[in-house]
Structures are given as C-alpha cells and as structure tokens.
C-alpha cells in the first residue's frame, strides 16, 4: 500500500518535471540566445537595440492603441449580445458558438481580402481607415471575448440573479451595472487581456491593410536580425505573463471569483 502511494507520487513528480522542462527549455534557450548579442559575453545588448529602435515604441504604441479600441468595441458589442442570448434566446447559443469558431477556421488572410474588397469602393471606403483594422481585430478576438463572457455568465447563474433583482424592483440598467458587470469582472478581465495579447502580436491583417503595427515590426526584425527577434520573443512572453498576473491580481478579492483564461476556470 505504502509502496503504491510512493510510486504514484514519484510518477506525478516525474510528469510535472517533464512538463516543466518541455515548457522552459525552449524559453531558457531563447533567453540565453537573446543574451549573445555581444561576442563572447552574455549581455542585454539585443534588448538595448530593440529599445533604441524608434519603430519598436512606435509600432508598440500603435498596436496598444488598436488593442484598446478593439477591446472597447468588442466588449460593447459582445457583452450585451452574450447576456441577451443567455437570458432571452438560449436556443441561439449553439449558432453563436459556431460563429465564434469561424476566426479559427477562416484564415485571417481571407478576412483581410474580404474587408479590402468590400470596403475599398464607395459608399463605404474604409480601407485606409484604422476603423477597418479594428473591425478585423474584433472579428479575430470574437472567440476569446465571447467565450470568456459566456463562461462568466454561465457560472453566475444569470437568469436567477436577474429575476431576483427584478423582483426587488430593479430595472435593466441597475441589473446590468449593479449585478451582472460586477460579477463578470473576472471574465471581462480575461476577455480584455486575451484580446490585448491577440492584437499586440497580430500580423496578417496589419500587413495586408498596411498599418505599422507591432506584429509586422516583429516579423521585419526577425527577417533581418539574429538576436533581437529572440529578445522580442522574450519581451512578448513577459507581456503575456504580465497580463495573466494582472488578471490574477485584479480578480483577487472578488467574492467567489475564480480566474478564467479563455473561458476556462
């Protein structure tokens, strides 16, 4: 009995360590490679080059701006839709879920050409407007936003809470701002940071719609330089982990809340 428990424990540790090695070895290798910008010594010179390049900050700020617009438009569109579907038309849920998978099925290049073809001519000539890029990003972010929000709504027992609030005399605005959104905080944070991570690194739409975003910048650097792309990869990774840590930090203290990443508890 004791032997069996010890073996199971040893196996658990074995698989955990194997998983951690699988995850961290490439990461450490990339990090070490990014430090070899100067021959013979380990240094942060590649990082210095990255930060010294004005295009780095320019493209990053542009993508940051686009991500903020995408988050705002995405949440304004998708949160009420998800609430409506969960409350009033649950039969439409499978259809919306199917739609939410479309960005995974249809390559961004198809979306980009569709947008260019549709919006290149009057009456809606939007091809040179950043609004078209934001619209494309909203489509790409749709699965992440919708699934995060939907999971949040499902876990809060939306219908009963809404009915309880209604029975206490609350109107729809009170229900939305005092009950639903506060209880959806973790899901909103998940949706926000997943959208941010998606938009910051997005390449295809930005390239085809000809915008100086961070994704094309990283691709350009990767084509021409050796150590700087590794430094950028580490920086992107740190930003993603920073976002996840921020979700954990901000959702800490929300009564009964559990962090949700990509619609998973």
């Amino acid at each position, binding site marked *: 009995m004791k032997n069996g428990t010890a073996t199971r424990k040893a196996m658990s540790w074995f698989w955990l360590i194997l998983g951690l090695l699988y995850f961290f070895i490439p990461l450490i290798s990339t990090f070490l490679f990014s430090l070899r910008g100067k021959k013979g010594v380990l240094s942060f010179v590649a990082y210095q080059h990255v930060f010294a390049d004005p295009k780095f900050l320019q493209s990053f700020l542009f993508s940051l701006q686009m991500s903020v617009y995408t988050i705002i438009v995405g949440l304004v569109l998708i949160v009420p839709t998800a609430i409506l579907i969960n409350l009033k038309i649950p039969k439409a849920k499978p259809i919306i879920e199917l739609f939410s998978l479309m960005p995974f099925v249809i390559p961004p290049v198809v979306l980009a050409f569709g947008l260019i073809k549709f919006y290149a001519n009057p009456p809606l000539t939007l091809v040179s407007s950043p609004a078209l890029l934001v619209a494309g990003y909203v489509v790409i972010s749709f699965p992440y936003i919708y699934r995060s929000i939907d999971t949040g709504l499902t876990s*809060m*027992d939306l219908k*009963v*809470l809404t*009915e*309880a*609030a*209604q*029975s*206490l*005399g*609350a*109107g729809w605005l*009170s229900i939305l701002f*005092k*009950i639903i959104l*506060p*209880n959806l905080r973790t899901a909103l944070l998940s949706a926000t940071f997943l959208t941010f991570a998606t938009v910051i690194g997005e390449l295809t739409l930005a390239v085809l719609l000809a915008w100086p975003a961070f994704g094309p910048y990283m691709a350009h650097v990767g084509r021409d330089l050796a150590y700087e792309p590794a430094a950028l990869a580490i920086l992107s990774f740190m930003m993603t982990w920073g976002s996840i840590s921020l979700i954990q930090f901000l959702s800490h203290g*929300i*009564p*009964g809340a559990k962090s949700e990443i990509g619609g998973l508890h």
Partner: protein
Amino acid sequence: MGFIELHEVTKSFGNNTVIKNLSLSVEEGSFLSFLGGSGCGKTTTLRMIAGFEIPTAGQILIEGKDVSRVPPAKRNLGMVFQNYALFPNMTVRKNIAFGLKIAKITKQEIHKRVDEMLALIHMESYGDRYPHQLSGGQQQRVALARAIAVRPKALLLDEPLSALDAKIRVQLRDDIRNIQQELGITTIYVTHDQEEAMSISDRIAVMRNGRIEQTGTPFEIYNNPATSYVASFIGTLNLLEGPVVDAARGTVELNGTMVRTVSDLRGLEGKKVKLTVRPEALSVARDADAGSYPDVNTIAGTVEMVKFLGSTVRFVMKFGETFMFMDRFNNSQLVLPKKGDPIRVSFAIDACRLLPEGDAIAMPGSGDVEEMVH
C-alpha cells in the same frame, strides 16, 4: 374577493399547455402552498404571479388590479428562489439593502431596516459576510430577509428548502412560518414535499397536469381528499377493493370479510369499489371486542413485516391478497409481532371511505408494500 386571484389562467409554451384554466383565490395574510409532483405546473403558476411568465390566457389580479402584463419589477412581490440567488458581489447587508436602494429609501432608513431584518433572521453578526462565506440555510435566511425588507405585497417562495439537508429544512420551514405569521404577509409557497406543505400552510392547492385538483386546509386535504389523485398523493393510504354487497348499509366484501363505510354506495350494488383507510386509523383488535362495536370494522390477517420508523412503528399485514399498513406510536412497552403471526385489526367505519372516481397514482398497499415485503 381574494388578495391574489387567478381567473382561468392558461399558459402554453409552444404547443405544450402546462397550465389549464386555473382559477384560485388567496386571502390576505394567508399562507397557501402549491403542492404537486414534478411538471405539474406549480412553479409556472408561481412565476406567472411573480411576473416572470405572462399567461397565454386569463387574468392575475393583485388587490383587485389586473397585473397579468405588469413587469415583475413593478409588482412589489418578494421572491425567494430554490438556489438562494444572493448577489455574490455583495455582503449580506448589501444584499438585504439592494431592493431598498432601488426604492430610493433614505440611508438611515435602509440602515434601520437592514438591522431589523438581520435581527428577524437571527444573523446580526453576519452582515459583513459574503454569500459564499455562509451555509445554505444561512443564505436562504438572507434571501428571505432580502425579499421581505422591501415590504412586498406578498411573498412568493419557489421550493426554498429543497437544496437544504433534512434538519435545516425542518428548522427553516418553521422560521418561514413564524416570520410569515409575525409579519402577516400573504405567502405563496411551492413545494413537492407534502409534509412541508401540511406543516406550514393555511391552505394547500394540490396540483396535477396544470390543474388544481383540490384546495383546502391541510386537515381537509388529508382527511377528505376530493379526488383519487389527492387521496393517493397525500400521506399513506390503504386500499381495500371488493364488491358492494349492501349499498344501503355501506357494506363491501373484502376477501370474505364484510367491511362497512360511511360513504354513499347507492347505485353501486354488486359493483367493485375501492375503499381507503389511513394507516393511523387502524388499531390492534382484542378478540373480546369482536362484534361488540357496530361502528367498527374488524379484519383478520397475518403480519408480513414490522418497520421501525422512529416515532412510529409500521406494521405491514396481509389480508387474503390485500396488503395493509397500520401505524402505531412507538413506546418501550410495545410488543412487536413477528412475520407470520396472526393479527386482527379494527378501524371505525367513518375512517373507511370510498375512493373518488379517477386514476390514482401508485397506491400504497400495492407498490409500496411490494417493495417492503420483497
């Protein structure tokens, strides 16, 4: 006119009609329970009263005003849900204060009213806790306090105790009844638990297939069931089947033994009828009493099983092909018979009634006994 009235209310979901021409009147300050099995329409009826469902036809009146199409937020009815429905982002105090804030009551008044409610549910020291820090019973108390804090016209409770364990259920149902009586608030309660309904209600409406089978006090429902369904749904029942041999005297032959009833058997001469008698109406007969009391039926059979139920002991007996239950209060002097022992039981003829026409649900004395005997 009742405080809450339903006039020929019908509710359909697509082609499925779940409530059929239901009419009901609830007196002000009374406690009415909707009792019935799953899918009988009791929750749908409550939800129509609350305003969460709109009747397909008919009217719902509160204080004489038609509220059939008034949204729930405008009805001023307190609602308690099965799964508590406390707002997870708010403390107990804030949950209770929610409806008061919506009603734009002054801060001092809200504070005072919340304190009163916390005292009413005996949770004065729990005000700053969040719902997830409370037990199920405590959460339901808070839900009750939240519902009554706004001083609603009526209180609606949708199976509020079904998610709680047995001991808490009994305690909380007594609390609900006490609070209802203290405040004198008109209350409609949905339950599938007959014991729960009988113990707290002024009146019970037994529902089946979207209709009310019978409305009455727990005493009336139990002792004078209007339909075969009510008779079989409420409590445990012995079923005695045999031909009417003397309709004028109310005599039915049961496996060679004559059994009398006070029910009217005129016109049923020679026909097979079903008589009912409650297990608690039976007692062990002494041989010396045989034939001594003309208003008492006595039948002889054998003991099949003795089941200890705590405060009572249930005897399962066999009379010919008929199984019967007899309940006796438990006491330390009680001599328990063994399987196969002969037994004679007696019951008053006025405890023996004709089962009303109609289809009964699984009758005790058949399925239940089979389960116990085998």
